[in-house]
């Protein structure tokens, strides 16, 4: 047993000894690095270590949570004390109970890239500088790069529970991105380029820089489109944000509480046949992949939408008990500071057969949306009604035309899914809205508001 697993086990013992009927500890330790670059210089270099424990305590149907960074025996006792005290304040919930062991999780290989340690600070700084340089060299209209950023992390997680669920795993991940600035007649345009991998050796700094440059330069000369209803092609980065919202809507927690556009729609037709969605916690290419979820239940692959129908909801052990279903291994958390909640792992949209050019050709006339803004404020999570800021390119005669900005696209989530006419053949992993693999999507019709 690792030292981390031992600390988790000790925290569970402390809570049970302190009055909890059951307890579960989530312990994590991480080493992170970050490089920020601007103007050919390293702006900042960060090295960090983090370690903490989050503890759930159950007293009958009452559950409370305590967390902390002090992992000395005294510190762990204090965390246990906070969790037990929190449980005493909570109200009884007949479905609240510690998750039980559900067999051995599948082994997942390739979550950790040991080459990270072969890349000292100097080398990751060079990689980040190369990202910036690539953007500046790939298009003369790129005036500057606001920032190029590299981040990597090696994390170990150990979960222990008095009810048996648990486990331990290690992952590494890294990403780099930049915001390129292009000079146009009407001011500056920005473009985001990014890449993600298990280790720095697998990142392509030239491609990341070029993507940012292309996205910024293509917006030069942009204008507002006319308000109308038209066909829309969503770039994978944009489609990913909507798929992320869909993942939340498919969470059984939101559905059981009647706060999801998918509430009471299990088994019903919620999308066109062209849109197929899985939650896959075991996909080796996904960044949310792990053998177990955030409460120690094995991860798995779950069909959410197939043949247009909503097949399953995402469950953690609480919603499974409440809904008379099985956990789909969908407990997630943003670290030891928060209780687990139902959340998607990797959302994977099935690719279709047409290239992006094919989708644009099929759209004929319309708008190619390559960026959206305001998703945190422009979407009603209960009804799925949304109106968000967007920018992109006109589609004219089946090809990308003039750049467009300062408009909104509006619909509701289910209407949009039903209007998916085709999914593209080239999916991409996108880290916005969770971890999503998605191709471009052609939407039959959407309301566009501009001038």
């Amino acid at each position, binding site marked *: 047993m690792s030292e981390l697993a031992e600390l988790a086990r000790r925290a569970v013992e402390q809570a049970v000894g302190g009055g909890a009927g059951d307890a579960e500890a989530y312990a994590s330790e991480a080493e992170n690095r970050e490089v920020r670059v601007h103007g050919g210089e390293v702006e900042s270099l960060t090295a960090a270590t983090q370690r903490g424990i989050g503890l759930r305590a159950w007293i009958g149907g009452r559950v409370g949570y305590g967390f902390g*960074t002090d992992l000395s025996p005294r510190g762990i006792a204090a965390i246990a004390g906070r969790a037990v005290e929190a449980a005493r304040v909570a109200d009884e919930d007949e479905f609240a109970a510690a998750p039980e062991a559900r067999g051995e999780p599948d082994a997942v290989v390739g979550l950790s890239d040991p080459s990270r340690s072969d890349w000292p600070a100097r080398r990751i700084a060079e990689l980040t500088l190369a990202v910036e340089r690539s953007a500046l060299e790939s298009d003369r209209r790129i005036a500057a790069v606001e920032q190029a950023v590299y981040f990597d992390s090696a994390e170990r997680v150990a979960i222990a529970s008095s009810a048996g669920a648990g486990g331990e795993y290690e992952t590494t991940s890294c990403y780099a991105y930049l915001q390129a600035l292009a000079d146009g007649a009407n001011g*500056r345009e920005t473009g985001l380029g990014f890449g993600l991998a298990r280790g720095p050796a697998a990142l392509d700094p030239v491609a990341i820089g070029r993507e940012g440059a292309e996205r910024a330069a293509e917006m030069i000369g942009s204008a507002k489109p006319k308000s109308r209803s038209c066909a829309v092609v969503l770039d994978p980065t944009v489609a990913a944000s909507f798929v992320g919202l869909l993942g939340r809507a498919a969470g059984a927690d939101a559905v059981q509480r009647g706060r999801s556009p998918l509430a009471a729609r299990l088994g019903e037709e919620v999308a066109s046949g062209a849109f197929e969605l899985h939650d896959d916690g075991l996909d080796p290419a996904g960044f949310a992949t792990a053998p177990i979820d955030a409460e120690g239940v094995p991860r798995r692959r779950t069909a959410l939408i197939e043949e247009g129908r909503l097949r399953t909801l995402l469950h953690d052990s609480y919603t499974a008990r409440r809904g008379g279903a099985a956990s789909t291994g969908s407990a997630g958390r943003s670290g030891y500071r928060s209780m687990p909640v139902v959340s998607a792992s990797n959302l994977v949209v099935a690719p279709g057969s047409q290239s992006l050019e094919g989708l644009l050709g099929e759209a004929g006339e319309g708008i190619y949306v390559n960026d959206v803004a305001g998703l945190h404020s422009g979407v009603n999570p209960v009804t799925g009604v949304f109106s968000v800021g967007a920018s992109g390119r006109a589609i004219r005669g089946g090809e990308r035309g003039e750049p467009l900005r300062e408009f909104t696209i509006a619909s509701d989530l289910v209407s949009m899914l039903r209007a998916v006419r085709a999914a593209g053949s080239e999916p991409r992993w996108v880290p916005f809205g969770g971890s999503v693999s998605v191709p471009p999507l052609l939407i039959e019709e959407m309301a566009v508001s501009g001038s």
Partner: protein
Amino acid sequence: MSGNGDLLDAAVAERVLSRALSRGGEFAEVFAERRGGLTMAIDESRIESVQSGAEEGAGVRVLSGGTTYFAHVDGLEPADLERAAEEAAAALRGGAAEPRPLRAEAPSPQPIERRPGEVATERKAELLRELDERARSAGAEIAQAMASYGEARRQVAIANSEGLLSGDDRTRVRIGAQAVARRGDRVETGAETLGAHRGFELFDDDPAAIAAAAARKALTLLDAGPAPTGSMPVVVGGGFGGVLFHEMTGHGLEADHVQKGASVYGGKLGESVARPLLTAYDDGRMPGEWGSDAIDDEGAPTQKTRLIDEGRLVAYLHDRQSAARDGVAATGNGRRESFRHLPIPRMTNTYIAPGDAAPEAIIGDVEKGFYAVSFAGGQVDPATGDFVFGVNEGYLIEGGAVTRPCRGATLVGNCLQALAAIDAVGDDFWMKTGICGKGGQKVPVGTGQGHVRIASMTVGGTGE
């Protein structure tokens, strides 16, 4: 030493700073923090998600030749701090520099009457039950109510190689209420919050009124039609309406954006950017306000900074580094989410000063337009100036009168044009709380204004 208690001993700090500069550097700083808090929620009339935590740690940075070397660790033992100093210095290759001796300063933290940590947890649960009850009793069409409570205390201590040793003790409390109204297939939501840099005394005066307000918003929206589409005059309500100024101007005045050529306000200092009726401030000293602190997260005293003076742009918001780069004094805006983050220029409480127009007259002059009473939030790209706001309570204005509620409206526009198009500022004024995200860091900010009118703006809805 008031403010930072036993967080950072002067002798330890001097040793850590020496260690940080042992391989060179022009400046070193240690930021120590102890943070603790409690959050809980009520949903389905049941108290749940009771979470209580405590964290402590430190971040050490060394500046050398334009590069910041930063390391952070959990824990505040001298060995933890020295480990952070060594990590930060690890990539440096120069000769040792000496920090100056520390002079302790003791700024006065915002006064807290009743420490939330000393109020029984059960009392906080009761507060949530009051909110739940008030929302549910607002009407038969209220189908659901949720409410949340949060308290946080951050004790910070900052020492740097220029001899500064200072600290602050910050306590914030905030409650939020959300209601869902249902009529047949129609489902609408309403939300309201109340927060301050204060103690539990904030809840002395009818805190459950926010639940009634959230319920009223949800019920109002049941009668809403689609929001209009296209360009039109927009009247923005007071309080959180100030998030409009926060997004479309405040972020663009943060000096890091300006210095990187990523702000549309770059090079406009001294120029007219708005009509003379507009004056605006960032003020980190407003008593009890959500975005106030005694000092910023680099130890500089917070201050009131005039940003726009009768339409003329007069200041940017600076942290230590951006001020040095521009050769100006810091404005006390170097903020960070926690010891795990580097300080960057951030707003504190940002507001448009009250004007002289009566709110009724501001609406009365509009033939056909949109009235955005409050926003769900907003976002801006400071480099292009493009912004977007989600409206959570909006109405149509027809013939100078507010006629019907609208749902699902979004406002989009460009900062410079929209700021210059503000043609009325109301004489009513109040502040609201927000959580602002930038560079992956979230900090509490205040926003404020009275009613404000923008002569023309794009409203994106699904209607005609």
